[in-house]
């Protein structure tokens, strides 16, 4: 399937909604869960999920519910998970990733990381100020989650903390981890400063398959 055909598979609001739900969940999601979460019937959910799987946007695994083994334990559940492959279409053709790779290499070689972190903090702060201006009365958690959602981080709550399911810079970060994770931390620290959010603190704490930053609830910490 061509890239444009793969992306076109998402050009249906119901299917897009299902994809976004599956994508934001780290673990495998069953048809029933996805249907319930997006407010559609299971048969319709199955139809759309299978179209997404055919296009390679989600992958299918089978798992037994925990604690059940042996004959009579039931058929393993069919679970859907976001596929790892990236898909890009740009019209006219643009290749920002190639430029990003070159720029990252040069920052690494010349040691311009502190400047990168300063710039990133500045940029994050501008985004934070803009978000706060647009929604001055919004609680911190909602403001931050909304902004980070729009930026593609796929935030989710973990106790009082905010965790980020998706790394918007994934391939670049895997090739230049300290550089890009440092940049990312600075972006998020800046965001919190600009939005005047004091209840959360950004810290590096990678979880498998997720973004390297956690936004920790400052009130829970003793220090």
């Amino acid at each position: 399937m061509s890239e444009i055909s793969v992306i076109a598979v998402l050009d249906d609001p119901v299917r897009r909604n299902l994809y976004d739900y599956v994508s934001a969940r780290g673990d495998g999601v069953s048809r029933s869960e996805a249907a319930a979460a997006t407010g559609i019937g299971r048969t319709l959910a199955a139809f759309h999920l299978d179209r997404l799987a055919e296009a390679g946007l989600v992958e299918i695994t089978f798992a037994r519910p925990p604690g059940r083994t042996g004959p009579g334990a039931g058929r393993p559940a069919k679970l859907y998970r976001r596929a790892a492959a990236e898909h890009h279409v740009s019209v006219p053709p643009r290749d920002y990733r190639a430029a990003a790779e070159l720029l990252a290499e040069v920052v690494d070689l010349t040691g311009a990381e502190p400047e990168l972190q300063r710039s990133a903090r500045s940029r994050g702060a501008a985004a934070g100020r803009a978000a706060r201006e647009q929604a001055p009365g919004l609680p911190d958690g909602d403001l931050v989650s909304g902004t980070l959602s729009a930026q593609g981080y796929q935030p989710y709550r973990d106790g009082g903390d905010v965790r980020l399911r998706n790394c918007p810079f994934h391939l670049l970060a895997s090739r230049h981890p300290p550089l890009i994770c440092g940049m990312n931390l600075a972006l998020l620290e800046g965001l919190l400063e600009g939005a005047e959010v004091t209840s959360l603190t950004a810290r590096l704490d990678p979880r498998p398959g997720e973004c390297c930053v956690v936004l920790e609830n400052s009130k829970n910490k003793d220090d």
Partner: protein
Amino acid sequence: MTGYHLAELNIGTARAPTDSPEMAGFMAGIIPVNALADTAPGFVWRLADGDGPGATALRPCGPDVMVNMSVWEDLESLRHFAYRNGPHLDFMRRRRSWFHPMAVPYLVLWWVPAGHIPGLDEALSRLDLLRRDGPGPRAFTFRDPYPPPAQATLPVEAPLPVEAPLPVRAPVAQTG
């Protein structure tokens, strides 16, 4: 299991002497980071010298150049510790405050027979190889890795065929 372990060497030119205030953050941070390495999955060995934490007192490459070396069960264990362990990643994020940038490679990875601990001479020769020829089966990087030699069942003492890459023997905290 392939019968091979993954060795790494990394070097860095410190911005100031280790007892200076500029390096205080590094010298304090290296101790807990080394402790984390010791219990990390896949960790086998790291270079240590009695005179300072880890390998911080060793100067085989000149007065300002610090070295570190470690051995891991496989590449993924090292990659996970280096870049997916919170405290170590944070340590790496701050490296510019303590170390000068280097225009030539400062980190090299290579395969060693399981159970072999590399010496500094071998490690430095692998770094030279990387700097001279770029990444290859005998000296590579995280961005351009190479698999271990294919002879999984070969006993350690047996001579390897001429064409096969000779694995060389090789700590965790990245100083570069």
